């Protein structure tokens, strides 16, 4: 009963959000309005709330019904339950950020057997149970953006160090490889003097940076490529009284770095625009549901984002976004 109430409330909300249907966008023809169900890993998370802002925008633009529901806390079992409800309800497309890659595949497979299209975003499922994955960032995009930003801040000259989570983390090693490739290719006067693991801990990142700053007195920049390391490195630079003299950049969340960005300890925080991720996901879901997007396509025109590249079954959001002093207050995740 409670679930039914919530569902109807969500439905009412979604209908309220899409008051001006524009059936002309729906290529399958008049009258049929797609229902797209969007699921975050958890509802309360600021990251996914801002994804939803973009999703709402796309839903209004395309005139589709958008359902938004997910677990209160990241919970794979609850994700499955909601997907089964959606299957019963008979939505057209399900878009989901998967908490557990394997755990969700049965529910998604069942949904597809009922003719429901599936896209994943943010975190993929196994590739056999979805049509497309909306991929927010490629390793090359991340590596290039980090390295280019480091070069811009240091005038393409001087020593820098990397703080990573661990020397064995596959995704981070991939990023490091791309950073080093970009460095070798474009910035001959810059030098990577040290790479230190911080075990994905803010405290350890701070200790490591404290030592790096005095062991390498010519250091111009610290690049932190795991999220807890960005504020950790910033705190070390601040405590050493080197704010501004040694720049700090990294991959992270605006909320965890706002204080340091405003104090000019951290210059740039790099991530993707979560609003655009939500926006693109709904665009892709709509195109898939209405049959305009088929496996094998190389590009896809997604509203205000223009032509979006598709690599295999990955729809790419494109270049990461840089948060800095000027824009960080617009983001609260």
């Amino acid at each position, binding site marked *: 009963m409670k679930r039914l109430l919530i569902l109807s409330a969500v439905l009412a909300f979604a209908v309220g959000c899409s008051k001006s249907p524009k059936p002309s966008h729906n290529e399958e023809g008049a009258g049929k309005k797609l229902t797209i169900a969007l699921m975050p890993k958890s509802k309360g998370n600021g990251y996914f709330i801002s994804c939803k802002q973009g999703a709402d925008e796309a839903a209004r633009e395309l005139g589709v019904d958008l359902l938004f529901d997910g677990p209160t806390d990241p919970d794979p079992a609850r994700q499955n339950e909601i997907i089964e409800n959606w299957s019963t309800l008979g939505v057209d497309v399900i878009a989901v950020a998967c908490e557990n890659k394997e755990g969700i595949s049965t529910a998604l497979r069942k949904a597809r057997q009922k003719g429901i299209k599936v896209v994943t975003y943010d975190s993929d499922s196994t590739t056999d149970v979805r049509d497309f994955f909306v991929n927010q960032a490629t390793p090359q995009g991340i590596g290039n953006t980090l390295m280019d930003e480091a070069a811009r801040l240091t005038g393409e000259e001087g020593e820098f160090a990397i703080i990573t989570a661990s020397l064995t983390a596959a995704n981070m090693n991939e990023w490091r490889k791309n950073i080093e490739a970009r460095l070798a290719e474009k910035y001959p006067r810059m030098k990577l003097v040290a790479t230190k693991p911080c075990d994905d801990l803010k405290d350890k990142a701070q200790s490591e940076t404290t030592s790096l700053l005095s*062991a390498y007195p010519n250091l111009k920049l610290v690049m932190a490529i795991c999220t807890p390391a960005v504020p950790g490195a910033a705190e070390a630079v601040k405590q050493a009284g080197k704010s501004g003299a040694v720049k700090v950049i990294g991959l992270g969340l605006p909320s965890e770095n706002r204080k340091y960005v405003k104090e000019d300890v951290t210059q740039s925080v790099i991530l993707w625009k979560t609003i655009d991720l939500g926006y693109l996901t709904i665009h892709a879901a709509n195109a898939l549901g209405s049959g305009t997007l088929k496996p094998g396509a190389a590009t896809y025109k997604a509203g205000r984002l223009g032509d979006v590249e598709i690599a295999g079954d990955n729809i790419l959001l494109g270049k990461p976004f840089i948060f800095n002093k000027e824009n960080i207050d617009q983001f609260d995740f």
Partner: protein
Amino acid sequence: MRIRYFREWSVVAVLVLLLGALAIMAPAFFDGQPMLSRLAREAPTLVAACGIALVIICRQIDISIGSQFALCGVCAGLLAAAKLPMAVVCVGSIAAGTSLGAINGALVAGLGLPSIVVTLATMVIWREGLRWYREGQFINLPDQFQWFGLSQSAGQYTLLWIAALLLIILALAMKHLAVGRFFYAVGSDAEAARLAGIRPRLTTFTAFVLLGAFTGLAAMMNVVQSPQVDPKSGTGLELKAIAAAVVGGVAISGGRGNLWGLFAGLLLLITINPALTYLHVEPYWEKAIQGAIILLAVIADGVRSRRQPH
């Protein structure tokens, strides 16, 4: 007597050698600010390690302190974020640690369960509970909270003083007070201790409770060092604290060891990692070298006890 202190002195000798090498090859290691920041960062580790020494001397172990540390830190962070006074935050953190320690203590001393199993379980429960609750999200603290509202260096010296006082008082108490000797007695031979009128279960319980309280204090000392609380903090703290104790001559088989040795062991351990940075050694070696040093200390212990007839 000479043999009894073998391990402590060998640790001190290695430490002196390492510092000597740094003085010649990388004198920047001794610069004031990074040194003070580094020591302040490790002051909480010393406090937690003092607690773990008590438990090890009782012939028990606690591998849940990293998780306790994180829980207490989050607790302190939430209290601070609610704008409660510093004293309340401090008491809250220590109270949280004491309760967690009491749970371990009750299970080990009360029910007689093996401490390695009990604390393995609580380690996972606290850590995963925290992950479920916080989802790794940081807690942002109020502006005036960092360094107890003092200046940076005053705050850092305060932390060093807290750790130093605790070490000195505890070391003296362990040596000179009867209560201090209880821990050794229970750790060497619980049955003999019982016959001598000591209550082994109560003593063991007390050791776990004290460790919890110290861990709570340590978490508080960590929280004041930055404007945010990382709910993952303290991961690996148990290894560092146990290694410091063992390297410093606290016997893992209980009943033997002192806090000065532990202090030397910790100093050595916290010097190795930055030393490798200053000496520009590849980070891939870091953990292997730490492991090698711990192994060396254990071998020294083995050699020592073989020489000494029981």
